[in-house]
């Protein structure tokens, strides 16, 4: 029985990985993935950084955070509506694999995309602007937990039963863009009024920014353990809600 259980889990992992690899090959270079996952965070970063007379090295953690946030959360909302329109998402639902494994495969696609692209600002910071990584553990935690939480956020929004990228991306941006203003991206949390600090603690992006700053020698207002705990909590919540919403869709469809 134990052997059967472990073989079932390993089967689910293999199928989830097959879905991830297929998504990477098929959708990573699709225009909406590049637009919402790469161009959007870089354009936002430049529009808020240029002319503010801040040393770019101190802004690199902000760019890393924004890239992790936008790139990881964009893959689900790009892939799933396209697959719904082509009816290829039904292929997963009718194949002998659990919904959990399907969504894990999709989530992993977002994690690899977000984390992979976010390595670029890290390298650019180190090579061109003299940034330093003083705490690799914090950086790894930042990458792993943030990409997981934001990818799961994208998968959760992709449960909206639309058949175009816009139908999912629009409500997602309605949440993503306001989060930028309450997450210590443009102004550190320590400089915010008290009520804003309370609100910013509730945003997962705050904890990504804080961990990214902390990993490069900066300060974290809430402390790295709170950052890690909050990101873990959000990853679990988004995954749980994503699965529940997709099951609700199956009941409705």
């Amino acid at each position, binding site marked *: 029985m134990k052997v059967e259980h472990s073989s079932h889990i390993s089967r689910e992992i293999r*199928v989830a990985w097959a879905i991830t690899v297929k998504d990477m*090959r098929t959708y990573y270079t699709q225009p909406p993935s590049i637009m919402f996952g790469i161009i959007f965070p870089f354009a936002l970063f430049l529009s808020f950084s240029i002319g503010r007379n801040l040393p770019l090295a101190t802004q690199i953690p902000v760019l890393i955070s924004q890239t992790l946030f936008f790139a990881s959360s964009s893959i689900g909302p790009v892939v799933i509506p396209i697959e719904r329109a082509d*009816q290829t998402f039904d292929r*997963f639902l009718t194949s002998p694999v*659990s919904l959990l494994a399907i969504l894990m495969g999709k989530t992993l696609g977002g994690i690899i995309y977000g984390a992979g692209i976010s390595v670029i600002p890290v390298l650019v910071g180190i090579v061109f602007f003299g940034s330093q990584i003083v705490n690799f553990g914090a950086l790894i935690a930042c990458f792993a937990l943030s990409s997981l939480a934001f990818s799961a956020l994208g998968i959760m929004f992709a449960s909206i039963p639309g058949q175009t990228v816009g139908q999912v991306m629009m409500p997602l941006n309605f949440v993503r863009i306001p989060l930028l203003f309450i997450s210590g991206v443009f102004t550190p949390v320590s400089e915010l009024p008290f009520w804003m600090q309370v609100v910013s603690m509730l945003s997962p992006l705050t904890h990504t920014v804080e961990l990214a700053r902390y990993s490069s020698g900066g300060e974290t207002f809430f402390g790295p353990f709170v950052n890690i705990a909050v990101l873990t909590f959000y990853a679990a919540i988004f995954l749980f809600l994503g699965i529940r919403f997709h099951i609700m869709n199956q009941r409705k469809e």
Partner: protein
Amino acid sequence: MKRIKLIIHEPAINKIVGNELNLSLDGKMQMENAIEVSGLTKKYGDLLAVDHISFQVKKGEIFGFLGPNGAGKTTTIRMLTGSSIPTEGTATIMGYDIQRKSVAAKEQMGIVPDVSNVYKDLTAWDNLVFTGKLYDMPKSFRESRAEELLKMFGLYERRKEKVKGFSRGMKRRICIAMALMNRSSILFLDEPTSGLDVQSVLIIRDLIRKLNQQGLTIFLTTHNIEEASQMCDRVAIINHGKIATIDTPEKLKRTVESLQSVEIAFEAPPQNALRELRKLPKVTEVTKVGDKFRLFTYDPSSVLTSTWDYAQSNNLKLITVNTLGPSLEDVFVRLTGIKPATEEEEQGRTG
């Protein structure tokens, strides 16, 4: 191998295993039915799309599922294949409940939906290999199976091309090949020949027959009644979410003996032919089918005589005369209430 058939009349057991079991002498249980559906229901808000339907599909048969648009065919197939969760009722696939044992049930089936849902940005080869991965087939097995299927469907030479460049018929063939990757026991086909050219239709029909001869159970939904009549061992007709009837095509035709007809064609049809022909004795209804007229009657021999007399007295030359039994289409029309064009509608169309 000798087998004993048991008919079980215990509802609780029937729910789990179906009502007929074969016990072979080595003690293995063999089920008669590939699909068992009991009280299957789907509601969308207040709309009852599928209304407590129950039926069985025997192993090895081609089962046709017919119905007009919006009758509940695709909703039923989506519930049977696990892509939609029923509001009520159960369905078992080779004895596995699609809700409670969904992975085991899905391992038994291949699905060809009404739209060829292939991965357009992948090659033909990658589409098949990826399907094999979804079924967790070992690498060597999935690759040999993909090669076998691509050769069988005449697409092996184009295996390295992306599917988005394929014709509709080729995409359909890839889609069927994907459904056959896991050597399933049941194949669900939703409108498999819809919108295809004649050559692709003939290839696919021939393939379905061959697969069935190899023991595969086929669940076929189609709008093409003639196709169902030619291919299916039994058909179910669904209308407004309810099963109107289930039987063999020939038995269904016998239920509507009143729909016998005489089909005639004139060299030069008279004006108001529909109205004039309807006045003939014992003719219950007249429809125009292309350049022919179909006169429905309980008594074809009397109608033959009166038609001949009518042609003689009006100086008309008959170029075709056939007597026809009821078709499956007639049964379908009778059961679903779909009406052919009335005389006024016909005149309005031509006028």
